[in-house]
């Protein structure tokens, strides 16, 4: 982990200059497509401003000159075929001139062939998961902004970071100058994966895979947010992409592959209860605390876990609800067997509950069927 963090620090300087510079207009384009979009927009705005000035120039001239108060008498004309044909045809011609370059960009955007790296981006309520399909590892990328910076109901929130709501536990890392194909899909509801600086936005639809692509031209860190309403924490699932040089990316991949091997839970390991509780606490904080709160007290539509019938009832039903969700609660199929065993054990033996039992990962695996 130290390695990417050092890289992150190195990337911080350029990140400040062009990741969040967009305040009035687009973020500085970092890909060919984003630049095309920006140019297209500038050209259309120029046409619009000219038309606007011409049309409203005429209107305001009329408003100032043809007033009853200044004694202007109305002239009772009500049609003129030449003028009417002209103001139908001229806009049509202007539209064709606008449509031509736009169509070329559409075709370029849609051309996802010949990608050199393919990454699957999966939307979850409410974070992103990235799987490097070519390299056999993946990770979850969650909001890193602490809740005490966000929640300000009692006017006691902490000072907000520069990248408030735009920082994640672990960014998507891609090499510079490489055509990266993103396969977007979702685990629960529709999300949308987008990075404005890359000119990329693709809805992540459960049950379907849709693709898009980008080719970053500069190293740095670039930030976006989920752009399709996906429930409670829609505003709290940013997308952060770190662009590295090809060499550094290769090193990072090697590192991640090693880590993945080392960190993989042995699915056959037999856990003792206290180990599960300790592991479950981290799983709980990362996934459950947003709704059920760190102390299990719940709030609003989200029930308390402390003293809840499910957390104190039969363990099979408890595992069942975590796996399949209920009402506003999403299904947590995306967690590993070990993580589910740990979090269920934690919920039953902490947060004010003391049922005393626990469950092994292999039993969770059986419960999935």
């Amino acid at each position, binding site marked *: 982990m130290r390695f990417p963090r050092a890289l992150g620090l190195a990337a911080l300087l350029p990140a400040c200059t062009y990741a969040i510079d967009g*305040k*009035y207009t687009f973020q500085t384009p970092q890909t060919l497509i984003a630049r095309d979009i920006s140019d297209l927009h500038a050209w259309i705005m120029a046409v619009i401003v000219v038309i606007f000035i011409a049309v409203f120039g005429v209107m305001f001239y009329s408003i100032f000159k043809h007033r009853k108060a200044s004694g*202007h008498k109305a002239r009772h004309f009500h049609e003129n075929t030449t003028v009417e044909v002209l103001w139908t045809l001229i806009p049509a011609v202007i539209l064709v001139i606008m449509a031509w370059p736009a169509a070329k960009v559409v075709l370029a955007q849609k051309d996802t062939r010949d990608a050199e790296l393919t990454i699957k981006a999966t939307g979850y309520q409410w974070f992103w998961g990235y799987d490097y399909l070519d390299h056999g590892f993946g990770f979850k990328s969650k909001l890193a902004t602490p809740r005490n910076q966000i929640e300000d109901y009692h006017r006691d929130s902490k000072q907000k970071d520069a990248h408030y*709501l735009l920082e994640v536990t672990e960014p998507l890392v891609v090499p510079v100058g490489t055509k990266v194909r993103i396969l977007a899909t979702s685990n629960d509801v529709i999300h949308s994966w987008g990075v404005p600086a890359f000119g990329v936005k693709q809805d992540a639809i459960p049950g379907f895979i849709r693709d898009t692509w980008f080719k970053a031209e500069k190293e740095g860190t670039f930030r976006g947010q989920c752009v399709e309403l996906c429930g409670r924490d829609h*505003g709290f699932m940013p997308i952060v992409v770190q662009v590295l040089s090809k060499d550094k990316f290769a090193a990072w991949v090697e590192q991640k592959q090693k880590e993945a091997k080392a960190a993989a839970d042995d699915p056959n390991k037999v856990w003792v209860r206290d180990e599960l509780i300790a592991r479950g606490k981290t799983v709980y904080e990362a996934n459950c605390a947003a709704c059920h709160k760190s102390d299990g007290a719940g709030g609003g539509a989200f029930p308390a876990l402390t003293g809840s019938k499910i957390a104190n009832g039969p363990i099979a039903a408890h595992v069942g609800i975590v796996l399949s969700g209920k009402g506003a609660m999403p299904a947590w199929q995306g967690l590993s067997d070990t993580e589910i065993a740990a979090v269920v054990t934690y919920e039953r033996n902490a947060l004010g509950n003391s049922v005393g039992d626990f469950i092994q990962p292999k039993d969770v695996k059986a419960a999935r069927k």
Partner: protein
Amino acid sequence: MTAATETLNPIQGGHADEAHGHDDHGHHASTGWRRWVYATNHKDIGTLYLWFAFTMFIVGGLMALGIRAELFTPGLQFWQPEFFNQLTTLHGIIMVFGAIMPAFTGLANWMLPLMLGAPDMAFARMNNWSFWLLPPSALLLVISLFVPGGAAAGGWTLYPPLSLQFGMGMDLAIFSVHLLGLSSIMGSINIVVTVLNMRAPGMTLMRMPMFAWTSLVTAYLLIAVAPVLAGAVTMLLTDRHFGTHFFKAVGGGDPVLFQHIFWFFGHPEVYIMALPAFGIVSQIIPAFARKPLFGYHSMVYATASIAILSFMVWAHHMFSVGMPATAQLFFMFMTMLIAVPTGVKVFNWIATMWQGSMSFETPMLFAVGFVCLFTVGGFSGLVLSIAPVDTQMHDTYYVVAHFHYVLVAGALFSLFGAVYYWLPKWTGYMYSERMGKFHFWWSMIWFNVTFFPMHFLGLAGMPRRIPDYPLQFTDFNTLASVGAFCFGLGQLIFLYNVIHTIRGGVGKAPANPWEGSHTLEWEVPSPAPHHTWETPPAREVVEKGLKEQLL
């Protein structure tokens, strides 16, 4: 037209049949609550619609202020995120179905019979029912805030699978949408039949007021698409409760199918809220320019073309779902094409003003404000129609800015203009011009302060429907929130002005307070008596007005 006279006869027959049933309340009108609950008179029902719409405008407006309060500064100050989502959802549904659409139906109810020389709407009792479905459906939406799990929180678009997750608030919203759709369909049937069958002698289709034309086309659009929405939400309901999988991928369904169905309704819906506004503005501008409407025929054709094109552009709301390139191109081209007839309309309005003898009473101010700001909304629509640019703008505040320019500065401003224009006819009194002008300028300024900065927020990438935002969006959000509260406050002036007018205003209104108005509603006294045009207007009266309009 003798044909038109003949078609009036059965209606008069129907009226005579009813007369004995009416004895107790028809001519010595029933009073108290019975007048309103049993209302069959188009003016009473129109009044009910308008007050209902204004009430919903206030309710939806308060929700908007709830949204803007939370967005005043970064961080969560007032609401939990899920309640914030409920506010955005209900604000949308209430403003679209509760405020704008009933307001236009109310205007059509009040004005169409008067403008066409008809004694009432074609189906007076259905008219009563279509209004009285509205309060219960509005109530369902309000109640849904208090049920376990709260109101629907998936946005007014109700996209599944998110909308499958909510509690019974969602079911109440679905049922409410069903009732609202039923009400719209009945209201539309009434408008179609009234416009087609009950015009005064001599008033052919191509000579009737533009407001009648746009109401007619709007009614057809509604009859076509309201059932589509009803179908979409019914499929949601069965997915939620009866084990179907229309939109659930796990059972072989497709979440995107809902979006196609919804927007097949949703895009014509945009024009359902815009076309009547075009009609109103086409009545007001000639009246205050003291000059006939320029290009009446092209106006009618433009209205029809917009209506037809509106069925072929729905997927421009879905450029980011990942459609094939050919679909992106098709929907982009069709969408851009709508700029042509819309442009024709704007040019016609300006040509109507050109060489006129203009005065700027409040209705005219709102009409000119409409033309300016609706065009801004049209231009941002053109920007959004370009599919690659939409990649950046989709689901950002740019879209929010765009549709509020079209719906607030468009539909709402036209409604304000209409109210000021016809208030003397409704109440028999003149409104305070000073207060009216203040209301206009106040709304104009704060509207722009609220919504113009949202273009910049969208360009910079701020997603819509988020309760909290990164720090670089702070300045414009704060500005927009200040604007929204001022805009909202200004509407109380409007309410006061209307009540003041009902109670006597600044003096009695003549039958026709405007120099340049020549449509039939100005031939009856002010206030319009409870029953008007019980016999069709004389041919000469109709021809005189049409001649003034050069029709």
